[in-house]
């Protein structure tokens, strides 16, 4: 009892000292965007007429409900990553959504109104094949799940299993589909490739096998890909080599009927596998007898099966996408056909007759920088006059979801590619037009060309422009001040983008796995430009580099994206303007050879673009841009350009030096035998990092100098032997120029995954301790000692003494997803580590707690130095979460960028969600608070001023009087 009360007291005390974000600051400096990923299944909620829900199951293992009016999330369930959380099927019935998860491991039912779980059943093991809803006499009560060896039936109301039956001859027959037409029977359809089809009919009541037939079909290998059940139980398959359709009545026929497509007057496009699309609007009734047959990439046909005869209702050519939709008793077919280069038109046709419905044209404008439409989801509804109206959701190749209403109004778009950001950069915004004008005036070229008088005129005119801009700004401020704060909106568009006073607003250039690039305003999170790159290999690795910042007006800023196929090593370059997203007119060189390494040099060409060096597999170096000027500069400094290559498959690290003819020579080599350990990652320091202080002041006022080697590499290895007694994680610190091993440490009885941050003179890494079964942090700090070897310049070639290495480890109470360090303009502000936790929190852990000089026994000197006494456990304090309740799902990376304010660091966390905020590791020492009392300070100043004036006057009078006396 006493302890409980004490705990309560402690809790109250702790709560009262929380100091992260004030309630009114929520959303002021930060924003979050939630995504779901590429859609795999989508169903519109149809059980209520005016419903505005669409249910999505995605490839990111997310099950979500979207508002069709706004595109916002109603709710979202994020399942485990990988195959365990994979959503195999989504069936919607009424207000229940049944989901099969994890290769048939779990069957779940969700209430779609609130997103609550109705029930969950763990199914027997066996790989999932298919599932369907089963109804009888217009009532749907069951769901059938077909697995490799068994078919089971579950109640929709509570998930309980009604029956489970083994499939006959399941070793030989590959059961792929399950079908029910509402007549009290469930059919399992299997195939023995290139031999026959096996059909097993089960009784719905008790699971008894009613009938079992096998039908010769030597041409068939895959039911799901080439067959569909149409009409009253007619299994219809398409065979492309024979150019025919085959039909089979599931209820009694024992032989397939062949209908050659030629007899219908149809032809298949060369090399195209025809596809059948049927629709079953109500699971308690058989599917419609109308179906689509796709004969070519842009050729669809609406066919009808009528008394074993196939009739062509309508031929759609060209037609990109087709889809059925049902509202009430009416089923319609939506067909998307290309109109011109930038637009597609959608039309609605009656499914029964193939006639076009009046006033149903909808125009879909394609983004010129987007992908082609890929899937069509149609929401049909009955209007008051009983005609059919519709809205469509189009998914394009670049994972964009667009929701369109008639006659082509885009209600919303969602950029689901952003759920898979691979890499990003933050680029400074350009100057405003007036600032640019001034810059232009003082440009070197202008000064040489013009005379004295014209320069004066120019100066006067630019001053005038500045004055004008200032007055306009004042006027706007005055105008805005009268309006209530909520109405003042600064809409950011690409035209009015400009750098703010403290460079807090930047352009976030994000590269996604699908190959779509985004430019996002860091202040509001609005997407300012997007650009889809076609023909990106699925296993591509990306590296984004800023070649020219916005600082070199009038040259536009320039970013280069290196896209490399991981298998072949072949790479290509995409050069673009990071502010507008436009492809640059600069032509990148073609790269015929696989690329091993790329490095950005601080050398600039005459147009202020930094030089990018690319090393191919022949160890030849090519430069981009490769003008004469650049090549000349490279020749001059070639002997001081070193680079390293890592071949983790052979455990080889090697160093090379550039020669003047742009060939290379091997200068050092380290080999870590792969039998013992494998290289997990190699981390250098960030090139834009500044370190303000060269050393640390000790308790006795002496200085301990930091070992600040910019060429230092942290190589993390893990043992090949994963036995928990012999496994280890190795940390090698290697000088990237000389190949000298500065430090080599092993952490025994530990294993990966290892997260590393390498900065200044320290390396922090996190690993799993197999011995103690916990996550641990370790920090290594390097010091030169009390004396600096060469204080003026650092050269890797001239540092004969090895640095002092200090190391300490700590227990961390959670596993982590990713880790990054804060970065500020000048490096004065103390550093924090930003840790993305699997729980969705982003923890800002002061580096002070990860300091190998934390003393075990407190002494006078350590107190003088402000060292925290050593405690083996690092605590997670709730006020360290920078994203308060804004959970960021599945954080994969954190990007930090300095702002113009020394105290402020911009942070972007990305994963399934994107979260942007600012952090102040040393509090806002260079900013006045929001609630700073300007009135008080100015009135005090004025009062003091007047007081001095008056007292001066009085003193003068007094002096004068004394002089008269």
């Amino acid at each position, binding site marked *: *009892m*006493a302890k409980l*009360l*004490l705990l309560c007291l402690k809790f109250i005390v702790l709560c009262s000292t929380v100091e992260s974000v004030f309630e009114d600051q929520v959303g002021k400096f930060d924003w979050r965007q939630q995504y779901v990923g590429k859609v795999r299944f989508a169903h519109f909620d149809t059980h209520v007429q005016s419903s505005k829900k669409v249910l999505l199951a995605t490839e990111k293992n997310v099950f979500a409900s979207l508002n069709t009016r706004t595109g916002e999330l109603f709710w979202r369930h994020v399942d485990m990553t990988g195959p365990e959380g994979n959503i195999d099927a989504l069936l919607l019935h009424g207000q229940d959504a049944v989901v099969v998860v994890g290769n048939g491991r779990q069957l779940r039912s969700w209430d779609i109104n609130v997103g609550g779980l109705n029930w969950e059943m763990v199914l027997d093991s066996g790989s999932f094949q298919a599932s369907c809803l089963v109804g009888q006499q217009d009532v749907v009560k069951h769901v059938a799940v077909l697995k490799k060896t068994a078919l089971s039936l579950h109640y929709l109301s509570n998930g309980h299993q009604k029956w489970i039956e083994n499939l006959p001859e399941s070793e030989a027959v590959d059961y792929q589909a399950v079908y029910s037409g509402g007549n009290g029977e469930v059919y399992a359809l299997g195939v023995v490739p290139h031999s026959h089809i096996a059909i097993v009919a089960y009784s719905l009541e008790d699971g008894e096998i009613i009938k079992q037939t096998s039908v010769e079909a030597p041409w068939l290998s895959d039911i799901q890909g080439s067959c569909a059940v149409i009409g009253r139980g007619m299994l219809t398959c398409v065979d492309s080599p024979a150019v025919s359709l085959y039909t089979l009545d599931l209820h009694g026929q024992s032989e397939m009927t062949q209908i050659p497509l030629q007899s219908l007057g149809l032809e298949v496009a060369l090399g195209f596998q025809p596809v059948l699309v049927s629709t079953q609007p109500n699971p308690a009734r058989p599917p419609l007898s109308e179906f689509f047959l796709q004969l070519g990439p842009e050729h669809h046909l609406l066919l009808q099966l009528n008394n074993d005869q196939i009739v062509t209702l309508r031929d759609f050519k060209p037609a990109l996408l087709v889809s059925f939709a049902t509202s009430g008793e009416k089923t319609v077919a939506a067909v998307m056909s290309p109109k011109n280069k930038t637009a597609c038109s959608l039309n609605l046709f009656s499914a029964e007759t193939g006639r076009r419905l009046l006033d149903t044209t909808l125009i879909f404008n394609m983004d010129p920088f987007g992908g082609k439409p890929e899937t069509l989801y149609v929401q049909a509804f009955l209007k008051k006059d009983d005609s059919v109206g519709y809205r469509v959701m189009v998914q394009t190749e670049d994972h964009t979801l667009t929701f369109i209403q008639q006659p082509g109004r885009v209600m919303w778009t969602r950029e689901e590619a952003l759920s898979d950001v691979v890499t990003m950069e933050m680029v400074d915004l350009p100057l405003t037009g007036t600032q640019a004008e001034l810059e232009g005036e003082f440009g070197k070229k202008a000064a040489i060309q013009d005379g004295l008088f014209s320069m004066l005129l120019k100066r006067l005119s630019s001053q005038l422009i500045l004055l004008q801009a200032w007055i306009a700004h004042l006027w706007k401020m005055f105008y805005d001040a009268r309006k209530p704060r909520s109405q003042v909106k600064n809409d950011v568009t690409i035209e009015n983008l400009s750098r703010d006073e403290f460079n807090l607003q930047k352009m976030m250039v994000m590269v996604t796995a699908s190959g779509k690039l985004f430019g996002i305003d860091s202040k509001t999170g609005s997407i300012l430009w997007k650009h889809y790159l076609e023909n990106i290999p699925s296993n591509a690795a990306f590296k984004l580099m800023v070649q020219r910042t916005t600082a070199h007006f009038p040259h536009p800023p320039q970013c280069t994206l290196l896209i490399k196929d991981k298998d072949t090593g072949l790479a290509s370059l995409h050069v673009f303007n990071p502010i507008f997203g436009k492809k640059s007119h600069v032509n990148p060189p073609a790269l015929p050879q696989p690329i091993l390494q790329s490095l950005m040099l601080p050398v600039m060409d005459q147009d202020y673009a930094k030089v990018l060096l690319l090393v191919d597999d022949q160890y030849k170096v090519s430069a981009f841009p490769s003008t004469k000027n650049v090549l000349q500069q490279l020749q001059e400094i070639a*002997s001081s350009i070193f680079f390293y290559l890592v071949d983790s498959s052979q455990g080889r690290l090697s160093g090379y030096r550039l*020669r003047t003819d742009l060939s290379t*020579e*091997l*200068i*050092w*080599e*380290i*080999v*870590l*035998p792969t039998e*013992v*350990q494998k290289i997990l990652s190699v981390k250098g320091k960030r090139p834009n990092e500044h370190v303000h202080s060269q050393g640390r002041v000790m308790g006795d006022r002496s200085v301990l100098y930091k070992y600040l080697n910019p060429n230092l590499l942290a190589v993390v290895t893990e*043992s090949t032997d994963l036995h928990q007694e*012999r496994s*280890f994680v*190795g*940390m090698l610190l*290697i000088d990237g120029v*000389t*190949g*000298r*091993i500065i*430090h*080599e*440490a*092993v*952490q*025994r009885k530990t294993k990966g995954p290892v997260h590393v941050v390498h900065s200044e003179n320290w390396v922090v890494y996190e690993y799993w301790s197999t011995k*103690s079964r916990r996550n*641990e942090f*370790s920090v*290594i700090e390097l010091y030169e*000692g009390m*004396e600096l*070897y*060469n204080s003026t310049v650092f050269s890797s*070639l*001239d*540092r*004969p*003494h*090895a640095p*002092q*290495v200090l*190391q*300490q*480890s*700590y*227990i961390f109470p959670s596993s982590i997803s990713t880790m990054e360090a804060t970065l500020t303009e000048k490096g004065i502000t103390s550093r924090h580590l930003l840790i993305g936790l699997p729980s969705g929190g982003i923890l800002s852990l002061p580096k002070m707690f990860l300091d190998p000089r934390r003393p*075990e*026994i407190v002494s006078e000197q350590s107190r003088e130095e402000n060292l925290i006494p*050593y*405690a*083996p*456990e690092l605590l997670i304090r709730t006020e360290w979460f920078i994203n308060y309740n804004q959970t960021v799902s599945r954080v994969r990376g954190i990007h930090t960028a300095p702002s113009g304010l020394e105290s402020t660091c911009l942070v972007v966390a990305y994963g399934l969600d994107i979260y942007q905020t600012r952090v102040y590791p040393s509090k806002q020492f260079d900013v006045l608070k929001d609630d700073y009392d300007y009135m008080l300070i100015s009135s005090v100043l004025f009062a003091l001023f007047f007081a001095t004036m008056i007292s001066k006057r009085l003193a003068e009078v007094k002096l004068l009087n004394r002089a008269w006396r």
Partner: protein
Amino acid sequence: MAGPLPCKITVVSTVLFALCTTFVGCNNGRRVGDGMDTEFGGFSVPLEHSFEVDDVAQFRVRGALMLKAGREPGVSLAPSHLSEEDRAKLKEVAAVDGLYRIRVPRVLLQADRQTERQLEGYLTAFVRACAMVESHLSDVISLHTDVSGYLVGVSIVTLPGACRGTEVEDEVDLEVFNTTLSIVAPVNAPGPETAFFLERMEQESEKKGKNPQEQKSFFAKYWYLILGGAIFLMVSNSAQPPAGGGREQS
């Protein structure tokens, strides 16, 4: 003149200290049960060097590294000389800022048989040739091994390491290598120090335990707060009935 000298000594001593610690570390680091019963003698591998004016490596034997495998691996190098011709060449290479490279074959120090020791490939390292010349051929070579005794890297530095462009007049200075050799095994990184921390915590709690003030029970410590709270509750309770009554009347 007296100033810099002590500093140098401290630097040297720190280096020595660092080396000593690594040696201590490697003792602990050796895996137990590796079958160290048999006592081997040393074995030798060639240490090769190359310095060419055109920087195309042509390795020649500089000496034989005598490696002593076992629990405490050791290494020694027979003192070697540079021939007249080589000295001239080294000076020439130094003049064009060429490199002085060394290489050793990859070996496994812990293996019993000669055949198992040798692995394919070499480990290479370099210094600037001018540094080699200006330091009068005094270099520090360390051989780095991994946990199971494979040689993974070699590093070479000269003392002093800088190239100041000072001319080495005396040919005798470039005759004999003055080499410091060492084998460095990986250090065992420390884990979280829980035992010591717990001990300290216990000591502190013991200290507190001795203090009679702390031994009081919860009620004994906070009786006045509880009493105050109780009185407050009583007062507020007694104040309520009239208010409720008032409401009833209206």
